[in-house]
C-alpha cells in the first residue's frame, strides 16, 4: 500500500527570474506511511516551512510531484482545495488566525468550508474541543477572552475539526513555558494514539522530537539530510551538531564521554536512557 503522502523530485524555487531567486527545496523524495508520527527538524531556512506548505497544496512545485494517496494533487486544479481538508496544517502561533465571534464558530470554520451538514459540524466541533481541552462554557465565549494557551488550543481544534488524515503542526509549542509545552505535546500524542492520524511535527527542539516521533527527518538547505528512528538519527549526533542543530544536552554529555575515552554509544537522547546506561556501566565497574 503506497504511503499516504509521497513527494517525487519535489523542488521549489522562489522568485524565479528575479534577483531574489532562491531554491528552497531541492529534489525532495519523501514517503510517509499512514499512522506515522514524523518529526521534521532543520534550521530556519532549511526548507521545512516550504515543504509542509506543498503537502497541503498551498504552494505549487516548480518541479516534481506531490501525491496524496497515490494521486498527484495538482492534476485537477479545482480539487486542490479539497486536499487541505485531508491534510490539515497548523501554522506557528495559530492563535493569530482566530476571528469569529465565538470559539464555537471559529472551530466550525473549517468544517463549514467543507460543506458539511449542521449536525455534522456540531459533532466535530464538540469532538475537537474535547480533544484540546476546551470546555463547553469556553466554546460560547469570544476567542479573544481566552488566555494565550487556550487560544492556541482553540486554533488547533479548528484544524482537528476537519478530521484530516494527516495533521501537520509547525512548532506548536513555540513561545510556551515548559508546562504548556508538555501539555500540548501530550494532547498531540493522545490524538495520534486515539485517531491514528498521521502526524508531522515540525520543530527546532530535538528533545521534543526525540520523545514523541517514531521517525525523524532532518533537513538542511532544501534537502533531506537524514531520515530514520530517533536512535538512528542520534547516533549521528556529531553530524547534527555540525549542521548547527542543538542536540539534546544528554546526547552532548555522551558525546563528550566518548571523546574522553569511554566506550559509550552516544545515541542517547532521554535522561531515562542515559540513567540506565550509566547505571549498567557503574555496576559493571564496581561489581
Amino acid at each position, binding site marked *: 500500500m503506497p504511503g499516504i503522502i509521497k513527494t517525487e523530485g519535489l523542488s521549489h524555487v522562489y522568485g524565479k527570474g528575479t534577483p531574489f531567486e532562491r531554491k528552497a527545496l531541492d529534489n525532495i523524495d519523501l514517503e510517509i506511511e499512514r499512522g506515522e508520527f514524523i518529526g521534521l527538524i532543520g534550521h530556519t531556512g532549511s526548507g521545512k516551512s516550504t515543504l509542509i506548505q506543498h503537502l497541503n497544496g498551498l504552494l505549487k512545485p516548480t518541479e516534481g510531484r506531490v501525491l496524496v494517496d497515490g494521486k498527484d494533487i495538482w492534476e485537477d486544479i479545482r480539487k486542490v482545495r479539497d486536499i487541505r481538508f485531508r491534510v490539515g496544517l497548523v501554522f506557528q502561533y495559530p492563535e493569530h488566525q482566530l476571528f469569529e465571534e465565538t470559539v464555537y464558530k471559529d472551530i466550525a470554520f473549517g468544517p463549514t468550508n*467543507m460543506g458539511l451538514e449542521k449536525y455534522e459540524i456540531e459533532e466535530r466541533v464538540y469532538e475537537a474541543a474535547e480533544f484540546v481541552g476546551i470546555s463547553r462554557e469556553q466554546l460560547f465565549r469570544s476567542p479573544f477572552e481566552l488566555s494565550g494557551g487556550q487560544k492556541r488550543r482553540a486554533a488547533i481544534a479548528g484544524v482537528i475539526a476537519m478530521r484530516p488524515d494527516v495533521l501537520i503542526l509547525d512548532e506548536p509549542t513555540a513561545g510556551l513555558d515548559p508546562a504548556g509545552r508538555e501539555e500540548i505535546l501530550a494532547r498531540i500524542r493522545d490524538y495520534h494514539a486515539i485517531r491514528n492520524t498521521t502526524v508531522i511535527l515540525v520543530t527546532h527542539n530535538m528533545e521534543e522530537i526525540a520523545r514523541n516521533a517514531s521517525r525523524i527527518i532532518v533537513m538542511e538547505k532544501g534537502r533531506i539530510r537524514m531520515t530514520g528512528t530517533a536512535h538512528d538519527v542520534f547516533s549521528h549526533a556529531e553530524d547534527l551538531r555540525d549542521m548547527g542543530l542543538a542536540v539534546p544536552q544528554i546526547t552532548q554529555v555522551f558525546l563528550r564521554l566518548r571523546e574522553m575515552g569511554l566506550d559509550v554509544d552516544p545515541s542517547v537522547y532521554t535522561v531515562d536512557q542515559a540513567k540506565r546506561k550509566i547505571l549498567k556501566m557503574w555496576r559493571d565497574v564496581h561489581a
Partner: protein
Amino acid sequence: MLKDITLGQYFPGNTPVHRMDPRMKILLTMGYIVILFVAKGILSYLPIMIWLITAVALSRIKPSVILRGVKPLIFVITLTAVLNMFYTPGTELVKIWVITITYQGVYTAFLMVLRIVMLITGTFLLTYTTSPIALTDGIERLMSPLKAIRVPVHELAMMMTIALRFIPTLIEEADKIMNAQKARGADFETGSIIRRAKALIPLLVPLFISAFRRADELAIAMECRCYRGGEGRTRLRQLNYGPVDVYALIFSVLLWGAAIACRSIAI
C-alpha cells in the same frame, strides 16, 4: 503574494537628485504640479518637458521604470483622450458615423494625455529618489510653522513614519493569515464580489486585532525609551540646503517662468 506590491518604491542612489534636500524636492514637486495646470498650449508645455527630462536623466532612474507608474491609469488616460477628441468643437478633421473629430480635439486630447503622464511621472520621481524617512522628515520640517496654529505636526510625522515602518510587516502578516485560513478551506478567489468581500473577514479581523496589539506594545516600548512627544526632541539627521538645491531652484524658476510666458502664444 501580497509582498510583490511596490508602492512608490524608493531606489537608493547618489545622483544630484537624490542628494537634494527633501524639502526642496517636495516644494519643487508641488510647484511642478501647479505649473502643469497653469500651462496652456504646446509651447508652454515644452519648457516643462525639458525640466522633467532633465530631472529624470539626472536621477539615473530608467525611463521604463518611471513610466511603469502610468500603467494602472491607462484606462483613465484613454478615456480622457477619447472624450476630448470627440467632444471638442472646432474645425472638422474627420467624421466617423455620427462622431466628429476636430483638429482642436486631437490637439487638446494630446495635451491632456501629456499633462497626466507628466503629472504621474513627476510625482513618482519624488518617491523614487527620496527615502520614506527623508520624505516624512521633509514634510515635518515644512509643516512646522503650522505648530503655531496648534496643528500636531510632530504627531502626524510620527504616525507617518510608523505606518511606513509597519507596512511591509503587516503585508507579511496578512500573507501568513491568508495561508492559515486557506489551510482551513478559505477561498479568496472565486465567487461574486459580495462573496469575496465576505471571505475577507477571516483575514481582516485577525489583521486588525494584531495591528492594535502591535500599536499597544509599540507605544509601551516607545515610552520605555523616554518618548514624550515632540517637545525637546533633537534629530540624528540634520537637513541642510546645499548648492544642488540652489541650482535646482534657479533651473526650475527659469523654465517655469518660460512656460508661463509662453501661455499667451497661441497656435
